[in-house]
Every structure is written in C-alpha cells, then in structure tokens.
C-alpha cells in the first residue's frame, strides 16, 4: 500500500472551494479526521461522507476524485472481507452465519462498514483540500503558521523532483531495454535504479552550490514569491470547520446512545451478499495481481 503512486494534483478551477485559502480547508480536513476517530457509528460517518461528496460536487473534481476511489477499491474489499470474519473489536462477538471454516460476525460487519466509511471520510476531505489548492499555496500558508522555511523548501523540492525522477527512470529503463536488458523482474532493479539515483546526486551537488550562493540558511525575515491572502470569508469558513469538529466530537463523546455496535443487527442475507461480493471482487484482484507477477 505504501508503494501506490497515483498522480493526484490540483484540479484547475474557479469554484467557491478553489477560492478559499488552504488553511480553512486544512481545518476541515483535520476536523473530519478527529470526528472519524471519535465515532464508529456508520450513520454519522455516512453523513460526514455525504457532506464530503457535496464539497466534491461544489469543487467540480469528480473525475479526479473517482480515480482515487478506484485505487482504494481493493483495500475496501479486503477490509470488509477480513473484518467480517475477524473483527477488530472487543469480544464477545455475535455470529450471523457460518461459511466453511469462517464465521461471519455482527460486530465484524459493523466494524468493516465503519472502518471503510472512516477511510472514505478522511480521503474525501483530504482530496477536496489537495485537489483545490496549489501545493505552493499550501506550503506558503503553512509557513505563515510557523512551518520552518527549511522544511518548507524540502517538502516543495520533493514534490517538484518526483516527475523529474519518474521521467529519468523511464529514460534509463528504455535505454537499458534497447541494450537487451530484461525490462521487468528483480534483475532490472539495479541497472534502472542506480543511474537514476547517481544522476540525482549530481543534481544535489549543483543545487547545494546554488543554495550556498543565495545565502540559504542565513538569518533574517524570509519572503515568498507566492502570496496567499487570508480574508474574512476564509476566517468564517475556518471557524465553521472548527466549530463543526468541536460540537460533533463533544456530542459523539458524551451521548452513549450513538454506540450501535451491540444493538445494530444485520440479516444473514445482507451479511452473505457483502461477504461474497467482497470475496469475489478480492479474488479477481488477486488473480490479476498474480498474472502481473508471473508474467514478470
């Protein structure tokens, strides 16, 4: 999962969400993160997820957002499947139905749905923030709230280097293939990776000299080429996000009736449909992955 590389970037636009400063959007993102971990109630999480989808609609980023959802599809299937038979939930568990060596548990279905909705909530609000804010604006805003400029430089530089290194890797791989190297499998790792990294180190030396010549690390007030405004509208959106997060968290923490983990029941038909649907989808994914590995 750590290796997934999906080119997510800002989606150009002029929607009301695009025009908001990145900081209020970050406040909403962090607020939803807190809410998602405070509760496991699927209806509350579903409501927050729908609110996120409303923001996706307002921002007009559906095509890019759906690409991310497609990437999350395999993990969603395995999450439902594994949780149904082994809930990450305190025992005792109530059985719904037996399937071969496995038992599908009420708490498993509940846990699977709530964990899935939690991931979808966090991803949706994060995507709204990332896809409607230019990375430079995000880092400029973070510098305003105290992020050290050295860290800011490192983060920005990393983002800028990724497409360059990807392009260099493709060039090196094509060059090696043209010399008869096998383009897949373990044997191709060293001939394709070492030249890319060593080339990058040469760039580091040039960059280092360039930074030295511009007095990087000197004391004094730092200025930024990119200016990000923070107006009254941004302050109101930020306050709304913080209020939403605080009120919801307080309500969820203090109302014990919102814990439906022991009271919500699922029918055997629903449990079996969910289990086999996720299982078949997961097996198809595994077969596709194995085919890729075996043909390498």
């Amino acid at each position, binding site marked *: 999962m750590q290796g997934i590389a999906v080119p997510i970037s800002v989606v150009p636009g002029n929607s009301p969400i695009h025009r908001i400063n990145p900081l209020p959007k970050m406040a909403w993102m962090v607020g939803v993160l807190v809410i998602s971990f405070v509760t496991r109630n699927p209806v509350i999480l579903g409501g927050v997820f729908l609110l996120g989808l409303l923001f996706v609609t307002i921002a007009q980023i559906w095509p890019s957002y759906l690409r991310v959802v497609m990437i999350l599809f395999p993990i969603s299937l395995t999450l439902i499947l594994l949780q149904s038979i082994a809930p990450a939930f305190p025992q005792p568990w109530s059985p719904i139905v037996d399937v071969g060596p496995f038992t599908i548990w009420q708490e498993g279905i509940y846990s699977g749905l709530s964990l899935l909705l939690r991931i979808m909530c966090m991803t949706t609000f994060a995507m709204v923030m990332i896809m409607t804010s230019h990375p430079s604006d995000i880092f400029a805003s973070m510098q305003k709230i105290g992020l050290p400029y050295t860290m800011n430089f490192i983060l920005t530089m990393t983002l800028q280097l990724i497409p360059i290194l990807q392009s260099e890797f493709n060039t090196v791989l094509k060059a090696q293939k043209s010399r008869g190297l096998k383009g897949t499998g373990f*044997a191709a790792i060293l001939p394709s990776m070492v030249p890319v990294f060593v080339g990058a180190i040469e760039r580091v030396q040039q960059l280092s000299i360039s930074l030295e010549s511009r007095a990087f690390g000197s004391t004094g007030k730092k200025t930024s080429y990119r200016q990000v405004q923070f107006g009254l509208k941004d302050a109101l959106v930020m306050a709304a996000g913080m209020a939403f997060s605080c009120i919801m968290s307080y309500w969820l923490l203090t109302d014990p009736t919102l814990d439906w983990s022991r009271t919500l029941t699922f029918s055997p038909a629903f449990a079996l449909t969910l289990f086999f649907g996720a299982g078949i989808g997961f097996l198809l994914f595994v077969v596709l992955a194995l085919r890729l590995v075996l043909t390498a």
Partner: protein
Amino acid sequence: MASKAKTRAVRIPLTYVVALVPVAAALNIVGGTIRSALQLPIFLDMIGTAVTAIVLGPWWGALVGAITNIVNSFISGPISLPFAVVNVVGALVWGYGHRWGWGKTNVGFFLLNILVAFLCSVTAVPIYVFIFGGATGHFSDVMTAAFLAMGQNLIVSVFSSNILVSLADKIISGYVALAIIEALPANLTQNLQLPKAEGLNRIILPVVGVVIGVAVMLVAIAVAN
C-alpha cells in the same frame, strides 16, 4: 563513535543535506512507480531512507522517511500518512545498526536488513489492524485470510503475512541501497565501512530461503495452536 559522527556532520554542509533529503524522499516515492514498471511484488519505498540513514545518519534518514509519507499523502491520498512511523523506524534501525557496526560484513548486513523487516512489521501491523481493519489491498491479504482460517487472531495473521512481504522488501531494498552508496561520490562515503555490493541475483536465493523458512515456521505455529 560520537566524534566520528560529529566529524561527518561538519564535512557535509547543511545546504547539501537540505538538497539530498528531497532527492532521497522523491526516490522513495518514485519506488512505487518503479515497482509497477518492473512488475515486482515488493514495495521498494524505503531505498532512499536506507541510503540517507547509512550515509548521513539515522535521524536524517528518519526525516527522509517522514517527508516521504507526508509528500506521498499529497500524491496518493492520506492513507500513506500513518505509515510514516514505519519509515522512521526503518531509518533508525538502518542508521544506528550501521553506526554500531552491525552492517560491516555481508552476513551482518543481511541480518541487519532482517531486523529492519521485523521491526517495520511490528510497527506496521497495529496501523493495518486498527486503521485499515487488517486490510492492505495487497495480495498478502490472501495469506492473512489463510492464517485466520487456521485459527490465528487478526493481529497475528496480519503480522504473519506482513513479515513475509517485509522480509523480501527490506533485504532487497538494503542491497539496492548498498549498490547506490557504492556509486556515490567518495567525499560522502569515505568514512563508511560496508560490505561490497552484490549483484541482486546472488541475493535473491538467500531472500527466498529466508521467506520460505519463516513461512514454514509461521504455518507450523498456527497449526500447533
């Protein structure tokens, strides 16, 4: 040891380190692309971390690990963010392991990579279980289901499947890092005592042996329980 570390820090200017960290983090992220292009069943997302931890020191490696997952969350979504801890742990083990002289010989370096794999799995499993319900979206989930069917609980099952992938990934990443370090400019690597980089063809057989051995041991434990 401390004086040696101090000498190295003085020799490498801050601007060089500030320029090297993004390159290593970007290489970690591009590792995902390389894995897809070469159709490999491992992650390859900690090679830059290993290089930095060994060459510059464990905490610079930890910074690379954290930056990798922070920036990756801007590229592939926030699900990679919690795994920053795993990347940091890997950097600290590689960095301190090398500093304490565990990776001077070929056998020592091989065992150091196994230790990295073990500690990375120990760190990753609670994240997988409590945030992602044990799912990884990787085909190792089949192994998790198999261990569950043998009667193991979720944490043990996820650890059992994760350690197999992690062993292969971290050993190969360690040796790729070794090959990269060997190709770096001499002023960066003159103080380092490391074994000579082997071709990956010579490493694959021991890796397969270790993975199969651990798999057999895990299955035996599951059956015995």
